[in-house]
């Protein structure tokens, strides 16, 4: 089987401040530290066999990639262009914070060939931004989107967080209206999740923060999808919306389709064939390994068919495109229409999914229950481990 082009990911762990909801591998660090980090990242690139995969996306995530200087991003891009093979239409994504967006930086990033600039807006109201511990204000957020649009990126993407404590449907609708008024072609709308070992989880334990009741979360979830779809911002995943298919995140789709990806930098994950591996989460052991000339891999897993199918269901039910039954059949030899026909009929009759073009396509109700639905499958082939 000729493999689909892979994705290349860089994890830039630095943030000028750790957001209270964030459980990613992040850290603060001064300029010198950041510079050293880039050097280590450049060294990590050289540790890889550049010929194993052919890439068509490069994604800078974090953390905050805009905590690096544009020329440092340029050095990384130069290094990978030398080391790895790429498709002609490779697309480059960079996540940035609004406070780092200036006329100069957007010009520089655009000059590096970045196609999608992803802005960590998170909220478009002062209370929301304060609650989320962000460093920018609403005007800066709006201004950053305008600057990005003017710089001529193919796609300007924004991130929003909803389901904040006390947020009502009309609050959120007003927020979406403000977002829709911006010249952005892609929205990521993430429902607030309280992760362990974050400031929010501490506040929750202390009783100083109360999450929205799950039924209200559900209401907001469905509202988000209906409202944005109606406004022409078409959903394609649980949290992803785009003005047109061309604006969808080609890179992120790879995570959901078992397309190979290679991750560099601390905590970055990689996947190829049946193997998934990940780098040291903490920066020190990551750089230690690189300095010793070793791949900074902390762990790996070999995925058996059962695990691969479960992942395909888990990620597939999160997407509008649904679960690709023929793909599962041809790649791993499991025919869910045989193993789980009764369940499929039941979920269909419950209005949670439909079967079309050899795909199990979740309805909006089904999408909202993706985590409950996916583990229901595979009882038949689950018996033998």
């Amino acid at each position, binding site marked *: 089987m000729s493999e689909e082009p892979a994705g290349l990911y860089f994890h830039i762990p630095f943030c000028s401040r750790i957001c209270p909801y964030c459980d990613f591998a992040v850290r603060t660090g001064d300029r010198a530290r950041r510079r050293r980090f880039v050097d280590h990242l450049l060294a990590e690139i050289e540790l890889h066999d550049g010929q194993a995969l052919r890439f068509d996306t490069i994604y800078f995530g974090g953390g905050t990639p805009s905590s690096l200087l544009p020329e440092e991003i340029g050095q990384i891009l130069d290094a990978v262009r030398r080391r790895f093979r790429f498709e002609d239409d490779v697309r480059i994504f960079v996540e940035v914070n609004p406070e780092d967006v200036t006329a100069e930086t957007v010009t520089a990033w655009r000059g590096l060939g970045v196609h999608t600039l992803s802005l960590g807006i998170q909220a478009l109201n002062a209370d929301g931004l304060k609650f989320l511990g962000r460093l920018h204000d609403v005007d800066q957020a709006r201004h950053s989107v305008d600057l990005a649009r003017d710089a001529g990126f193919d796609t300007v993407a924004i991130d929003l967080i909803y389901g904040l404590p006390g947020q009502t449907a009309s609050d959120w609708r007003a927020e979406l209206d403000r977002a829709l008024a911006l010249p952005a072609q892609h929205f990521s709308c993430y429902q607030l999740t309280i992760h362990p070992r974050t400031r929010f989880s501490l506040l929750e334990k202390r009783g100083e923060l109360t999450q929205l009741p799950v039924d209200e979360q559900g209401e907001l979830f469905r509202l988000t999808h209906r409202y944005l779809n109606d406004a022409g911002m078409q959903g394609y995943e649980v949290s992803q919306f785009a003005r047109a298919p061309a604006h969808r995140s080609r890179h992120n789709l790879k*995570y959901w389709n078992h397309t190979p990806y290679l991750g560099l930098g601390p905590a970055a994950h*990689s996947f190829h064939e049946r193997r998934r591996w990940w780098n040291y989460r903490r920066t020190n052991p990551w750089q230690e390994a690189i300095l010793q000339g070793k791949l900074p891999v902390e762990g790996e897993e070999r995925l058996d068919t059962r695990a691969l199918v479960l*992942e395909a269901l888990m990620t597939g039910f999160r997407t509008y495109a649904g679960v690709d039954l023929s793909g599962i059949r041809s790649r791993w030899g499991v025919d869910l229409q045989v193993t789980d026909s009764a369940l499929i009929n039941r979920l269909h009759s419950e209005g949670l999914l439909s079967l079309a073009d050899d795909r199990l396509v979740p309805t909006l109700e089904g999408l909202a229950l993706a985590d409950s639905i996916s583990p229901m499958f595979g009882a038949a082939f689950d018996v033998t481990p």
Partner: protein
Amino acid sequence: MDEIRNFCIIAHIDHGKSTLADRLIQHCGAVDERKFRDQILDSMDIERERGITIKSNTITLSYKASDGKTYQLNLIDTPGHVDFSHEVRRSLMSCEGAILLIDASQGVEAQTVANLYLAMEFDLEILPVINKIDLISADIERAKEEIEADLGLDPEDAILCSAKEGTGIDELLEAIVQRLPAPEGDAEAPPRALLFDAAYDPYRGVVLACRVKDGALRAGRTIRLMNTGKEHEVEEVGLLGLQRKPMPELGTGSVGYVLAGIKTVRDVEVGDTITEAERPATEALPGYKEAKSVVFSSIYPMATDEYVELVKALDKLVLNDAALTFEKDSSVALGHGFRCGFLGLLHLEVVQERLRREYGLSLVLSAPSVRYRVTLENGEVCSVDNPSFYPDPSTIAGCEEPFIKGSVLIPERYIGAVMELCRERRGVETNFNYLAAKRVELTSELPLADVLFDFYDRLKTITQGYGSFDYEMLDYRETDLVKVDILINGEPVDALSQLVHRAKARPRALHYCERLAETIPRHQFKIAIQGTIGGSIIARTNVQALRKDVTAKCYGGDITRKRKLLEKQKAGKKRMKTIGSVDIPQSAFVAVLKTDTDS
């Protein structure tokens, strides 16, 4: 015989019985300091944890008294719960004296009184001991006053001790020797020994614990168990230390063990009289009472592939639990299992706990039931303890249910509350009389079915722990019985069906529906839970549909973590019972049986 003392310790729960026993054992050097662990006699984990003694344990101590003689002190442990009252009685019958333990900070409590009367019923010499004198809250004078006022004993006889600190133990040992009577019996008569306990040893078979009343038991002789008529050749006799100590004989008045190659405890009946086959006694000792199952419940393995394990576990369990009975049963909802008979609810709980801990089994239990007597229109009479076998109501002429005579000992201030509790539980002929100033014995004739559900817990709650409860079976009385079924999304769950008095049907059904609604996780559809009698709905609750269960982010680093979470969920689901398309966790089957303080 003069150098033997047979005694037990009776106490309110927590007054330090096990600690005192430990201290006596230590003082007599029966156990190596290094091997010493707390509450030696409570050999089961469950006992140690809950601070109750379920299985009697007996130990022989050797004590050199101040008179220069060495005495054989037999400490016979007694269980502390009403379910096991027959075991208490048998233990007391083997003693001449009892140490009545009183907590210096708590004073005389209900169970102390109850135990005292029980001990007096068996003519035991009482040795009051005030324990925990080391506590700051100890009030020895008040305890003494209460000994006089509430128990009618001479407070000057009381021995002061702290089992924890080890103070007063020498005085206590001297008092046991000097003040408790030596056993009496006819050494020349044909042997008679009361079998008061039987335990299973995987290497030697059943270990009979007995008290020799007349004559002696010797190895090599053939014994006969008078009630069952069975005969066995004695392999070994001896004293019960922490390890068994073989002796040439067990003489008159002594307490010890007999090994006779008996395969399971089912082959003997505790309470029986052991005599010699060649020279049998003419009359058995009094006190034999068959341990009868009064509570029945079906046990199913949570995972159907654990059935074989359950069979093995039950076979092993009955080797040393003669009171447990079981036969095959099966449920549409839960598959193959066993219908088990228990002495009471605590016994049921203990069996369940042992199956879980000792055999690693996760179980589902059906609602406990008493055994009803059902008369059919055609005159046939049948016993029904399993709702599945309840005859078609149109063929039933009448039903009877077992009644007990319950006896509650309480301080007088609780009379009102306890009478109300008895009334709630359909008690009749509820009366009380004063045992002493402010001490009341309240008796009531109650349907056993209504005592099964949390009566004891409720009694403890409303009397703030002062109420003690004992009961004896009375008779069968006419009742208005109905079968309540529980339906989950229209599907009956046979393991949740139960037989109840018509007046209790609706509250019971509602209790079940509410507990199930609390414990069944939300599904992606609404779940209706209904209680019905013969198709008509008498109670209903719902579990609202879950309409959102999806995490916000799922990228490279999230996928493995998330898949593992889902795999865990899947494994968890396997531990659930699926009825229709509803997954019911084991906790739901447990929750329905839990105390409902509102009812």
